[in-house]
């Protein structure tokens, strides 16, 4: 008979023995059964080593079989760090080991284990840092050697994860007996329940529990498997309960918002009440070589037997301090495994009847003993056993075995309780931290409460479920050691004794994720890290993939024992989401970027535009050559999409007062049909935004803002509205209107082909507006000149965008019309000295510094920013924004410094090559004394100072003759 392998059918098994599945593991074909996990299939095939450890590359086998520990992380079809114990097999899947070279069996880096004494905990904080080059090399090596698989950067992963939200009256987390009882009780109250369980089938530990329960009301004489099935059936038959299986709640946030990973879905579930019935983890024991393959939690062995029909070994030793060990021994015996001994840390059996039963079946019980060491290379071959009372003088007894099942008590899965704001306290009677206070609407039941007796778990679940229907605060009944718990005071003492012996040994692993030993922890405490939080960070215990599930309780126990404090004094590390590792792809979800597009977006792409992101907008940067486009505007006619401008419709009798309040200049005196530049400042006088204001009617204005600020300015308007008067309303119409600017000496001729509006300079003057039809489309025409040429800004209903663009370009063809993009516009506006807020200004620039005092009307009533501006004037203006022209043909980059006497005194905000001058030019901040026409400044270009001369007038059409023509 093989040492391990598929056994006879089990009543609770979840495999389909009639359906075979084949997959590859490290090139070897593995034949599995439908329902197997990767791990159960490999184990059944005789493979018992699944990974190499993080730091020392020690071989690691099965530990928990429940998706909690790091021991079975593998790469599946290129996806790293898959937990083999919970990933179902699929035909053709390719499984590869991680973190071992050249093979899992013969790992070159396992040599590190021989030199473990060179790498105590925290060695990388202290060693290898001098000389600096050494650390660079060491860091690279450490990163290469450590780790958990690697990402194939060539692989383009599918976006398989999707997000959705859900709502429920009651969320029950945990599908064990307490969770199911809670869900059924809540359903009886008429609630809608979502029951979330991280296993493929409901039942929790009962699914592989073959003992018969005679004292559980309603289930007398039934096995755990039977009870699980009956309850799961009731749940399935309830119309009020939705079951989410194979789903992990990885975070519980404010207002009972649960983050759940359910297959390819990331679900955010908001519930009115939450019942936490997350159960408890079994705690590993700490002894020398406790990480050898073949040493596993008792519950893992029971899962192999009960769920997958696998015989986990031939000759077992069960080490325990609870009755669970005894139950495990009996189930192993039933599965055909010889049980060489039960090593019980308790001086007396926790349940004498059970002890008699195992003895009657020929199992040797070593009461008051513990494991000292496991022997073997790559697989456990035996254990050394000694008394727990410290009488180690006697020679430890060696017991040969190929399977060690360890059960060191329970660690409640209280992470979600902590995240919900629950308070926990260490209950010395049962040796576990249990909740002492739960926030309103949060309930708990079962193992997580320190309640391990099935009858009480069910009662507690029903109570929690019933309570969710009312507005009652959660009650937290104290765990009752006499009735509800398996552990006893003696067993707790025994567990502590198990811990205390291991601290001197350097191969007794506490943290399987990070390869931290019990000795490492005491070493760190000796270095001063006595606080559990700093101890965690220094040693990295509980910071690996298991997030403390396997080590949290033992860490506190060792710390308490070594520092002679109580576990309550030690406290616990903080639980934060995610409680379970979650792929980043699951958090990010489908790849979508909320970008804004203009109504003419499609045409720009067809015209070959280079599109850029400008804020959230997609805009054409150019259509080939920005310089050519700029020249076309100067010499002929150009058209640019300015739909991205923010646009606000401001209506109401109090609209003029609002505008006068918000802008530095005056709008209450603006005539209907007229347009005015508007400058807006924040309370401290810093420039916030600029744009134009067109008066459409006595009580109606059309306001434009910079492209990126539309939403912010809308909010700004609404914020200040209350101060302007009761009757004014602002509507953001940015999306409603498409807009183009048609500019250039031939713009009038081109547009005149499409409209009856008289565009003659005397009839349609600069800074005026008209409403009429262009190519049959109702438009608002505004005559302004951001680029410095005669031009019209046309605003029209967005749905006409493509049509109007095509109509204008068709009409302008005979005049050599050219589309121009953002870059050409930047060049042209720069030649006119027009600023772009945010590009040429920063959060402190005021209008006096930008030489925009002409737009500040201090003679009007109060306005936002007035105090800031007058204050700045009183303090004196220290710097100004000026134009400059390079003496050489060089063009500085935006942002380079202005130098004076070898020191930076200012900076270039925008610079380009001027098609008009054929020279580099731009805008720059300079000290006020240099803000003089013709003053020389030095611009740093490629580390060389280059001379430029200051100009205070636009370099193009300084008197605005062309603009007004």
């Amino acid at each position, binding site marked *: 008979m093989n040492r391990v392998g598929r056994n006879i059918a089990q009543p609770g098994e979840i495999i389909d023995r009639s359906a075979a599945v084949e997959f590859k593991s490290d090139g070897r074909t593995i034949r599995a059964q439908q329902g197997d996990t990767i791990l159960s299939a490999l184990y059944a095939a005789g493979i018992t080593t699944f990974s190499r450890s993080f730091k020392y590359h020690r071989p690691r086998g099965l530990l928990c079989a429940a998706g909690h520990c790091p021991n079975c992380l593998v790469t599946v079809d290129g996806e790293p760090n898959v937990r083999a114990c919970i990933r179902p097999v699929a035909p053709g899947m390719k499984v590869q080991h991680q973190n071992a070279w050249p093979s899992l069996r013969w790992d070159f880096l396992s040599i590190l284990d021989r030199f473990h004494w060179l790498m105590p905990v925290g060695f990388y904080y202290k060693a290898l840092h001098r000389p600096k080059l050494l650390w660079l090399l060491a860091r690279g090596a450490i990163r290469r050697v450590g780790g958990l698989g690697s990402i194939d950067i060539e692989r383009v992963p599918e976006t398989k994860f999707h997000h959705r939200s859900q709502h429920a009256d009651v969320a029950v987390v945990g599908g064990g007996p307490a969770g199911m009882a809670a869900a059924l009780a809540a359903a009886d109250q008429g609630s809608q329940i979502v029951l979330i369980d991280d296993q493929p089938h409901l039942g929790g530990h009962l699914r592989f529990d073959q003992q018969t329960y005679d004292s559980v009301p309603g289930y007398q004489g039934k096995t755990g498997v039977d009870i699980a099935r009956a309850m799961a059936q009731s749940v399935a038959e309830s119309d009020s309960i939705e079951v989410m299986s194979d789903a992990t709640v990885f975070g519980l946030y404010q207002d009972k918002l649960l983050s759940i990973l359910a297959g390819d879905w990331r679900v955010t579930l908001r519930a009115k009440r939450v019942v936490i019935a997350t159960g408890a983890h079994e705690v590993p024991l700490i002894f020398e070589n406790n990480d050898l393959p073949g040493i596993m939690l008792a519950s893992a062995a029971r899962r192999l037997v009960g769920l997958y029909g696998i015989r986990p070994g031939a000759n077992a030793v069960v080490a325990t301090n609870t009755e669970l060990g005894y139950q495990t021994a009996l189930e192993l015996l039933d599965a055909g495994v010889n049980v060489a001994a039960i090593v019980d840390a308790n001086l007396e059996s926790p349940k004498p009847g059970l002890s008699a039963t195992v003895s009657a079946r020929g199992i040797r019980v070593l009461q008051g003993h513990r494991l000292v060491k496991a022997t073997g290379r790559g697989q456990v071959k035996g254990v050394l056993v000694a008394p727990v009372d410290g009488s180690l003088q006697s020679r430890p007894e060696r017991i040969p075995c190929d399977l060690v099942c360890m059960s060191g008590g329970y660690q409640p899965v209280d992470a979600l309780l902590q995240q919900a704001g629950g308070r926990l306290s260490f209950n010395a009677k049962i040796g576990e931290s249990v909740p002492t206070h739960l926030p309103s609407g949060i309930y708990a039941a079962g193992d997580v409460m320190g309640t391990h007796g099935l009858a009480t778990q069910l009662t507690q679940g029903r109570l929690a479920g019933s309570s969710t229907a009312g507005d009652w605060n959660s009650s937290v009944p104290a765990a009752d050691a006499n009735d509800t718990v398996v552990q006893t005071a003696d067993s707790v003492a025994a567990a502590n004794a198990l811990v205390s012996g291991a601290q001197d040994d350097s191969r007794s692993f506490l943290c399987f994720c990070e390869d931290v030993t019990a000795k490492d922890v005491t070493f760190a405490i000796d270095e001063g890290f006595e606080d559990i939080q700093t101890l965690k960070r220094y040693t990295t215990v509980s910071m690996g993939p298991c997030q403390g599930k396997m080590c949290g309780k033992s860490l506190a126990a060792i710390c308490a024992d070594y520092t002679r404090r109580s576990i309550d004094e030690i406290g616990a590390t903080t639980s934060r989401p995610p409680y379970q590792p979650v792929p980043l792809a699951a958090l990010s979800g489908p790849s979508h970027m909320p970008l804004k597009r203009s109504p003419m*977006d499609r045409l720009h792409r067809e015209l070959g535009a280079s599109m850029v992101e400008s804020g959230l907008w997609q805009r054409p940067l150019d259509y080939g050559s920005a310089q050519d486009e700029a020249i076309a505007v100067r010499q002929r006619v150009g058209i640019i999409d300015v739909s991205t401008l923010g646009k606000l419709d401001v*209506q109401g009798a109090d609209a003029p007062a609002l505008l006068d309040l918000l802008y530095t200049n005056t709008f209450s005196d603006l005539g209907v049909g007229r347009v005015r530049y508007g400058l807006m400042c924040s309370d401290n006088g810093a420039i916030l935004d600029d744009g134009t204001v067109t008066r459409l009617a006595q009580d109606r204005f059309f306001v434009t803002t910079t492209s990126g600020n539309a939403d912010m300015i809308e909010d700004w308007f609404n914020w200040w509205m209350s101060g302007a008067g009761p009757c004014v309303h602002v509507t953001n119409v940015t*999306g*409603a*209107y498409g807009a183009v600017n048609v500019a250039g000496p031939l713009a009038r001729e081109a547009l005149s082909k499409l409209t009856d509006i008289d565009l003659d300079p005397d009839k349609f003057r600069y800074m005026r507006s008209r409403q009429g039809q262009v190519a049959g489309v109702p438009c608002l025409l505004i005559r302004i000149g951001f680029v410095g040429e005669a031009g019209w800004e046309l605003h029209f*209903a967005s*749905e*006409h965008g493509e049509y109007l663009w095509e109509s204008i370009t068709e009409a302008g063809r005979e005049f050599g019309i050219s589309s121009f993009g953002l870059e050409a516009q930047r060049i042209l506006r720069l030649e006119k000295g027009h600023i772009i807020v945010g590009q040429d200004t920063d959060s402190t620039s005021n209008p006096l510094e930008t030489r925009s005092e002409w737009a500040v009307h201090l003679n009007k009533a109060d306005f936002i920013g007035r105090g800031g501006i007058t204050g700045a004037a009183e303090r004196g203006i220290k710097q100004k924004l000026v134009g400059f022209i390079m003496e050489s043909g060089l063009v500085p980059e935006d942002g380079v410094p202005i130098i004076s006497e070898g020191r930076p005194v200012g900076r270039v905000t925008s610079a380009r090559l001027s098609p008009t001058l054929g020279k580099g030019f731009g805008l720059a901040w300079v000290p006020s004394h240099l803000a003089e026409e013709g003053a020389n400044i030095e611009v740093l270009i490629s580390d060389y100072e280059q001379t430029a001369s200051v100009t205070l007038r636009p370099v193009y059409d300084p008197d605005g003759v062309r603009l007004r023509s």
Partner: protein
Amino acid sequence: MSTREWINERRSAMARLELLQGAVMSELNGWQQPLHYGDGASELKMLRESVGIHDLSPRGAVRLVGEDAVSLETGLFSGQKELAVGQARECRIAAENETVSLLELRLARDEFIFLTAPGDAETVTEFLRSPPASCVHTIDISSGLAGAGIVGPQATFLLSMITELDVSSEAFPSLRCVQSRFADVPGLLVRQDAVTGPAYQLYFTREYGEYIWEVITQAAHHIGGGPVGTEAIKRLQDGC
């Protein structure tokens, strides 16, 4: 000016994506609208069995806002009880030679939206014109909104993929409206169930049209749905 007759084609913000998705466009109410996406029968099946999404951008929308909005609205729709915030109702107004159907939404204490059939916004704006002295304003926002109809038994599920709102029948029954964020951008959701099942209208600012359409079509594909044309919608409404 030339005497040329202008042929004006209005396009929704989603037109480019709809064409890429295989839409066969047709002119309807002055708009280029997807007639179908190649297989009208499959589209009808989606509407009946999973979820279909269709472009509602041609619909008209008029905003009524101001302190006196309620009194104006009450006066215009006399005989109807006051609409609560978050509720919607179907109503009709008599225009010159026709009756115009509306879906009236109350978004806030002092704000209403009137959704109309394509081309009716101007009539409605005129109908809602306020007396000069009152503090209430109307504005035609049809061009600023893009819209998507989400119809079918899986419509609620699809919405759960783009919003955290509870839009189930219990929490958000027919003829309710809400402003919230959908796929991270602001939007307005209206539920107006069809005889065949749940039907939602999602409106958002036009500049996000392609983005939202891409998000919801991808979500719909994931659950067995997809975009549908006007033909399938009409056949569904006709009970074919």
